[in-house]
C-alpha cells in the first residue's frame, strides 16, 4: 500500500509533487497556529488562576475554529485616505516570509522540502523580510498610532536581527555548515554533543532576540495597547487582521523550531548514546526513545510554551530599555563568545570540536 502510494506520488509532475509537499507543511502549520492561540489563552489562564476558554466545544477545543469563522466573516475596513493597495498588501508581505522560511526546515533526517546548502542564510534573509509587512501596514494605514508602532517595530527588528545573526554565526562555526540538516547531524552522539552546552550564551541571545523579533511580550512595544492602542495593526479588522495574527504565530513556531534544530539536536533523541542501542528495538517505547520527528515537535512545543510563559510573567520593557539590551548587552555578549568559540575550536575541545 505504502509503496503504491509512493509510486503514485513520484509519477505526478514535479510541480504537483512540490505543491503536495508544500500543502503537507502549510496545513499542519496553520492548524498549529490556530491551536497555539488556544494554548496561549489556556496557559496564561492557568498561570493567572483562571480556566481560560471553555465554552465552545468540549473544554473549549473549538474556540480557534469559532475565532477563525468570526474573523473570516467580518468586514475589512480600509481607513479614509489610506493607501488601499499597500494597506491590503501588508498582511500578505507579513505572512509570506513566515511561511516561505519553512522550506528549509528539516523535520527529520532527510524530511525537508528544499535541502539547500545555504539554508541558514536563507532563513536569515527571509526573517529580515518580515519587517516590510509591519512597516507598510503602519505607513499605509494613515494613522499616527500605526505609524508609531511601525517605526518602533522596524527599529526593534533591525536591532535584534544583528544579535540573532551573530548568534547564528556561532552555530555555523560550531557545525561547519550552513545546511540546517547538517547542523543537526553535527550534534549527533549524545545529549552532551548538542550545541546548547558550548553555545549556551549564544542560545540565550538567540532566544531573547527571537522573542524581540516576533514582537512578543515583554518586547511588544510595537503594539503596546497602553501607549499606542495596537500599534501597526490598529486599523486592521477581519481577515486582514487575522493574517497578521497568523504571521506572528507562524514566526513564533519558526523561532521555536530553529531553537530546537540549532541548539537542542532537532529530531535527535536525548537518550541517544545514553541508553543501550538495544532499547531502541523495543516496540513502542523503543520508537519513542529513538530519534525522530516526535522529538523535534516536543522540543518545538517546549520553546513555544516559553513564549507563552514569558508573556504571562514579564512586564513590558520600555522602548529605551529594549534598545539598550539589544545594542549594549546582547551584541557585545555574542562578539565575546564568538572569540571564545574560536579558541575552543582551535584547541579542538571535545566532544563538540574534537
Amino acid at each position, binding site marked *: 500500500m505504502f509503496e503504491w502510494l509512493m509510486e503514485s506520488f513520484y509519477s505526478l509532475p*514535479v*510541480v504537483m509533487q512540490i505543491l503536495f509537499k508544500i500543502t503537507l507543511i502549510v496545513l499542519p502549520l496553520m492548524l498549529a497556529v490556530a491551536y497555539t492561540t488556544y494554548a496561549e489563552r489556556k496557559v496564561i489562564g492557568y498561570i493567572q488562576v483562571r480556566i481560560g476558554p471553555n465554552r465552545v466545544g468540549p473544554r473549549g477545543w473549538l474556540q480557534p475554529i469559532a475565532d477563525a469563522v468570526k474573523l473570516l466573516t467580518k468586514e475589512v475596513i480600509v481607513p479614509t485616505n489610506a*493607501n488601499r493597495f*499597500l494597506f491590503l498588501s501588508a498582511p500578505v508581505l507579513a505572512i509570506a516570509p513566515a511561511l516561505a522560511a519553512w522550506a528549509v526546515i528539516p523535520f527529520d533526517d532527510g524530511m525537508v522540502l528544499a535541502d*539547500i*546548502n*545555504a539554508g541558514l*542564510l*536563507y532563513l*536569515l*534573509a*527571509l526573517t*529580515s*523580510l518580515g*519587517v*516590510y509587512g509591519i*512597516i*507598510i501596514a*503602519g*505607513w499605509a494605514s494613515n494613522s499616527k498610532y500605526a*505609524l508609531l508602532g*511601525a*517605526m518602533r517595530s*522596524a*527599529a526593534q527588528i*533591525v536591532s535584534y*536581527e544583528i544579535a540573532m545573526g551573530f548568534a547564528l554565526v556561532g552555530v555555523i562555526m560550531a557545525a561547519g555548515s*550552513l545546511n540546517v540538516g547538517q547542523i543537526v547531524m553535527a550534534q549527533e552522539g549524545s545529549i552532551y554533543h548538542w550545541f546548547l552546552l558550548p553555545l549556551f550564551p549564544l542560545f540565550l541571545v538567540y532566544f531573547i532576540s527571537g522573542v524581540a523579533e516576533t514582537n512578543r511580550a515583554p518586547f511588544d512595544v510595537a503594539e503596546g495597547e497602553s501607549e499606542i492602542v495596537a500599534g501597526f495593526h490598529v486599523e486592521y479588522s477581519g481577515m486582514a487582521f487575522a493574517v497578521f495574527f497568523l504571521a506572528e504565530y507562524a514566526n513564533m513556531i519558526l523561532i521555536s523550531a530553529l531553537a530546537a534544530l540549532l541548539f537542542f539536536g532537532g529530531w535527535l533523541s536525548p537518550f541517544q548514546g545514553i541508553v543501550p542501542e538495544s532499547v531502541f528495538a523495543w516496540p513502542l517505547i523503543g520508537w519513542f526513545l529513538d530519534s525522530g520527528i516526535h522529538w523535534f515537535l516536543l522540543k518545538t512545543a517546549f520553546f513555544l510554551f516559553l513564549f507563552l510563559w514569558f508573556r504571562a510573567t514579564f512586564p513590558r520593557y520600555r522602548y529605551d530599555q529594549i534598545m539598550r539590551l539589544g545594542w549594549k548587552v546582547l551584541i557585545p555578549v555574542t562578539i565575546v563568545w564568538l572569540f571564545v568559540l574560536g579558541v575552543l575550536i582551535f584547541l579542538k575541545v571535545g566532544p563538540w570540536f574534537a
Partner: protein
Amino acid sequence: MTIETVFLMVFALGALTGAVAMFFLRHPMRVALALIGTMVSLAAIYAQLGMHVIAVFQVLVYVGAVMVFMIYAIMLLDVRDRSFTERFSPLLVAGLAGLLLLLGVLVDGLLRGQPFPAVDVPPDAFSVGTFAIVFMEQFWVYFALTAVLLLVAEIAASAVIDIRRRGQDVAAAQAERGNERG
C-alpha cells in the same frame, strides 16, 4: 520549454518591470517598493542559476537591510507634499520607451533561441566556502575601506545637517529679536 526557463523569464520580466517603474512612478514609497521588487526578482534569478549564496546575500543585504532604512526614512517624509499626489513623473514616456526597448531586447534574445550564453563555471564556484576564501583573500581590504568611507560620509552628513539646523536656529532667534525691537 522547461519550468526553470519559465520561472527565469517571469523573474526577468519582474526585474525589468520594477526597474522601469522606478522611472515613472512619482511617490517615493512606490519607487522604493519597485526597487525592492527588482532586487527580489534578481535574487530569484541568481537562485535559478544555482548561485544560492549570491541570491541570499542580495536579499539579506539589499532588501533586508539597505531598503529597510530607505523605507524607514520615506515613512518620515511629509506625505502631503503636492509632488507626491501626481501618480506619474514627467519621465513617464521615457520610462515606457525604456520598458519597450528592454522587452524588445528580451524577446529578440528569446526568439534567437540562445538568450543565455553558456558559461563554463566550475560547480563550486559560488559555494559558501569558495566565496568566503576569495572574499577574504582578495576583497576584504576594499570592503573595509568602503565601510570606513561610508562611515565618514554618514558622519559628514550628520554634521552638515547639524550645522544647517544651528544656522536656522540662529536666524530664527535673530528674526525674533528684530521683531521684539521693532
